[in-house]
Structure formats: structure tokens, C-alpha cells
């Protein structure tokens, strides 16, 4: 296999992040957040950019991953891998069930139904105080060191170790998504995106493909959610709210949803922007809103799409 320059470049940037982040006044927790939210945005983009289906309720699966991870650590067993697995199971099962309900809808209708269904989980988390901690979120669990048999990686206290742990998870997930997209299955998704009617005339089972893409997207989304819960030692009902879904969509669009790495770039820009805006002004929400408007009106192809176009011109 040929070495692809983009993959080599991104790998280098990410692997070396703990060394160069302090130089630009960054910190490791911020880098870890970019990775986690970047994974979330890339998972959403699997559906949005590569299947052409607009889900505006993906925060639900992100949040379910976080809660599943928290429940496992709090009530089941103190094991980090088990917790991630539980988070992924919860989010994926929910995605598979709801996906089956909505897979026949398209466009605006699909978006509305996904938004509305996403809110169910928000209200459950918000109201079921005894289990979820309600408005305060789920607390009382903490990430556990990883036992590899011959050695233990202490991700509980060492933030650099945590960063590399998240990076490994990120690399596995993103690698799997990349492989899936290069497979015949992924090519079929692209065909559906480009022209659904033609794909249907070719005899492809469209609904099955969209459903499967939805479930895969939810699986990686809930993995990101689980990692987010580990990062914060906390699961937040706001992570389930539809405004969070909107944040994920804008990350994907901001970076460029037609490119594989775009959402990661979008997440990085978004996280850094949010981090610095919220420390500067109390009206940071407005500025995020203004960013939405500017991206939609002036950079609908995202940063990568914009740069690519400029280099061609």
C-alpha cells in the first residue's frame, strides 16, 4: 500500500500534539476534546457527507454512549474497555431501533424526525433523577487504568497517557470508517448519495444500506460519547440535547463534509473558537450563532472545500 501524504501528515500532527500544543498556548485536555468531538463529527459525516442523509439528532447517540459508559463504570465494574463497550452497545441499539422507524423518510422529513426523536433521550436523562442524576448529570464514576497484562497504562491521572489512549481509539474508529468507505459497501453509499433513484433502478436495497450506514454512524458516535464521558468523568444531559446535534453538524460543514478529514478540522476550529470565546465574552452563544450564519452563507463547502477550490482556480 502506498503511503498517503494526508494520512502521514495528520498522524504526525496528532501523535506529536502533546509536544507542540503547549507552544501555542494549548493544553492536553483541549487536544483530547478535539479528538473526541472530531471523531463524533466524522461519525456523523459518515451519514451526512457520504450517504447524503441529514440526521440532525445525532447528539442522542453521543449522549447515550456517554451515559452507557458512566453506568458501566458506576454500577457494573471498574473497567474502562468494558465501559466503552457498554456505551457503544447502548447507542448502537438505540440507533438500530430508531433507524428502522425513520429509514424510509427523506430530506427535511428525515431531519425533523431525527431531531424530535433525539429529544426523547434528553428528557429521559433529565427526568429520571434516581438513575441519571437528572439536570446535574451522571457523576460518581471515574476512568480506570488500562491493564494490558504486562503493564498498566495509567489514564486515570496522567493526561498525556489519556490523550494517547483516546488517539488509539480514534485511529481504530477512523481507520474502520475509512476502510468501510473504500469497500463496495461504501461505494454503494456514495451511489445513493449521488442519485438515489438510479441506485434503486440498479436493484440496490436502498433502505437496508441507509439503515446500516445509520447504525454504523451511531456506533462510532456512541464511542465518541463514551470517550467524552471518560475524559470528563461525567455524563451531561446537555450532551443529548438537539443543540449539541447542531454543533456536530456545523463541525462537519465547517470543515467540509465532502472530505474525509474535514469534520476533524471543523471540530478543531469549533472547539478552539468556543474555548476562547467563552473565556472572552458572556455573549459567546451569539458569536457561535454568527459563525453558523457566516459558514452557511459564505463557506457552504467548508474550509477544505474552500481551499481546494482556491487552489484549483
Amino acid at each position: 500500500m502506498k503511503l498517503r501524504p494526508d494520512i502521514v501528515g495528520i498522524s504526525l500532527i496528532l501523535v506529536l500534539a502533546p509536544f507542540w500544543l503547549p507552544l501555542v498556548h494549548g493544553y492536553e485536555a483541549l487536544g483530547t476534546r478535539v479528538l473526541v468531538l472530531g471523531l463524533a463529527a466524522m461519525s456523523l459525516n459518515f451519514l451526512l457527507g457520504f450517504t447524503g442523509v441529514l440526521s440532525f439528532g445525532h447528539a442522542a447517540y453521543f449522549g447515550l454512549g456517554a451515559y452507557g459508559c458512566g453506568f458501566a463504570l458506576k454500577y457494573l465494574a471498574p473497567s474502562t474497555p468494558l465501559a466503552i463497550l457498554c456505551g457503544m452497545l447502548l447507542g448502537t441499539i438505540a440507533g438500530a431501533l430508531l433507524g428502522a422507524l425513520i429509514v424510509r423518510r427523506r430530506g427535511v422529513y428525515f431531519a425533523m424526525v431525527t431531531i424530535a426523536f433525539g429529544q426523547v433521550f434528553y428528557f429521559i436523562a433529565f427526568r429520571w433523577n434516581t438513575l441519571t442524576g437528572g439536570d446535574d448529570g451522571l457523576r460518581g464514576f471515574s476512568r480506570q487504568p488500562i491493564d494490558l497484562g504486562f503493564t498498566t497504562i495509567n489514564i486515570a491521572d496522567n493526561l498525556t497517557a489519556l490523550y494517547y489512549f483516546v488517539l488509539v481509539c480514534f485511529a481504530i474508529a477512523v481507520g474502520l470508517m475509512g476502510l468501510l468507505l473504500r469497500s463496495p459497501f461504501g461505494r454503494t453509499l456514495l451511489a445513493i448519495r449521488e442519485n438515489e433513484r438510479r441506485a434503486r433502478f440498479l436493484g440496490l436495497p436502498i433502505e437496508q444500506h441507509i439503515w446500516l450506514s445509520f447504525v454504523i454512524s451511531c456506533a462510532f458516535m456512541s464511542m465518541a460519547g463514551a470517550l467524552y464521558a471518560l475524559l470528563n468523568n461525567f455524563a451531561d444531559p446537555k450532551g443529548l440535547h438537539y443543540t449539541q446535534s447542531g454543533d456536530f453538524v456545523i463541525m462537519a460543514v465547517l470543515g467540509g463534509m465532502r472530505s474525509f478529514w474535514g469534520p476533524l478540522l471543523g471540530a478543531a476550529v469549533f472547539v478552539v473558537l468556543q474555548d476562547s470565546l467563552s473565556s472572552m465574552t458572556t455573549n459567546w452563544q451569539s458569536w457561535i450563532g454568527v459563525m453558523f450564519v457566516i459558514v452557511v452563507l459564505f463557506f457552504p463547502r467548508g474550509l477544505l472545500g474552500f481551499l481546494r477550490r482556491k487552489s484549483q482556480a
Partner: protein
Amino acid sequence: MDTQLILFNGFNGLIVGAFYVLMALGLSLILNLSGVINFAHGGFLAVGGYLAYTLTPYIGFWPSLLVAPTLTAILGVVIERTMVRRLYGRDPLYSLLLTFGLAFIFEDMTRAIWGAQGVPFAPPEYLSQPISLDLFFVTYYRLFMMAVVFIAVLALFMFLRYTRIGVRIRAGTLDLETVSALGVNVRALRTLNFAVGIFLAGLAGVLAGGNLSLEPTMGANVLMPSFVAIIVGGVGSLPGTLVGGLLIGVAAGLTSVWFPSASEAVIYVIMAVVLLVRPRGLMGEEGVMT
């Protein structure tokens, strides 16, 4: 079970349902003709309520009932002309994101102008009396609200049924290209339609402010149920939206009699059941907007 309690919650549900109807009808109008899911609709609702609050000391309650929604509608026209219009015909993703961002700005701006704390917006004293001691929850104001919603809905349906512009809006919902080819100015039609939708949101804001109090987040809270109302009733059908709004309002109200903490979730259960049994919604037609 106490009948009064059931009546109380059922009536509350009906009031809430009436709000959903006003919100959802406006959303539906814009969605049907322009294919835009207006996330900022809740923001317009809040603006309508706060404008009435500011105007009432100067012009009185009754005039502000009409003036505040009209001003809100004008704001809507400005936003439609400058921003939303550019996105017609594009992937619905973009108008969704635009209005989503606008909703953030609206909420933040209302907070900056009128404060994060809720402000009381009292309707005239004679309207806040209950009609009887047994039915203490049935105040004249609430009856008045129901009447206003009824009149607004009736007026909307008459407008769409009997006026030339209304007929064009309905025709445009079915086939905009043909309507345009017949010489109708589709751009102006969409702007007007947007204004009508926002007017309804502003009106709902004024009424809601008198019922509870004004808060910057008040619009965002009714937005999701309004989406559910549209989906339950059937995307593309205004009568469906009406039925859907009342249905989920009353259902949520009655649920709070027996199982208060599930009153928000129950509307989503209804939506799931409807989508399972009748995917196009109660009164939706197959093939429209799906």
C-alpha cells in the same frame, strides 16, 4: 381519581396544545412552501412576547396584541430577504443550520436586552379572574387565549381557502414550478408566506407571555413539541398540524395527572406510534415532502 384534577390537567393541555398549534402552523406554512425548517421560530416567538411587554405601557394591551406580532413579522421579512432567501432550492441542511444559528443569536439578544430573569407580563386585571371557584384554573384570560387562537386559525384557513394569494400559496406547496410558470411572483409569495408564519409565532409569544411569564428560552421550549405536532399530523397538511398540536398538548396534560415526569416524553411515544402505524402522519398524503 379526582375529576377536578383530570379536568385541570386536561384543560392545561388544551391551552398548551393551542400554543403548539400556533407555532406549528407557522412552521408548517414555511416548511411547505419553501422547504425550510425554521429553527429560529422559537426565537421569533420570544421576540413577539417581549415586544408586547415593552409596548404595553405605551399603547396598552389590546393594540400590542396586534402591533407586536406585526413588528415580529417585519423582522422576519428582513431576515428572509437578507439571508433565508439565498438558500431556497439548496440542500435543506443549509437553511436548517442558518436558522439554528439565528436561534442562538435571538436567544442571546433577548437575554442581553431584556435580562436573563423572566419578566412578568400581566394581561388586564379583568381578564385574570377565574370564571368560577370550582373551576379556579379556567380564567377569563385562558378562555380569551383560546378564542384568539381559534380566530387566528380560522382566519388563516379562510385566507388560504378564499383569497387569491392564499390559493397561490396552496398551489405553490404542491407544485411551485408550475405556479411560477403561470406568472406568479414566487419570490414575493414566499416572503409573504414567511411573514404570515412569523406573525403567528409572534402572536403565540404575546399570548404565552400573558399566560406564564416571559423568558429568553420560552421559544426554544415549544419548538420541539411543534415539530412533533407537524410530524404526527403529517408533513404537508395544515389541518393535520392543527390536529397534531391539540392531540399532543392534551396527551401531555393528561399524562401529568398520573405520571408527571413522563409528560414531556409521551409526545415522542405518540410520534413513534404514528410513524409505525401510519408513516405519513395522521392526515399526511403519501409522496408529499417525504
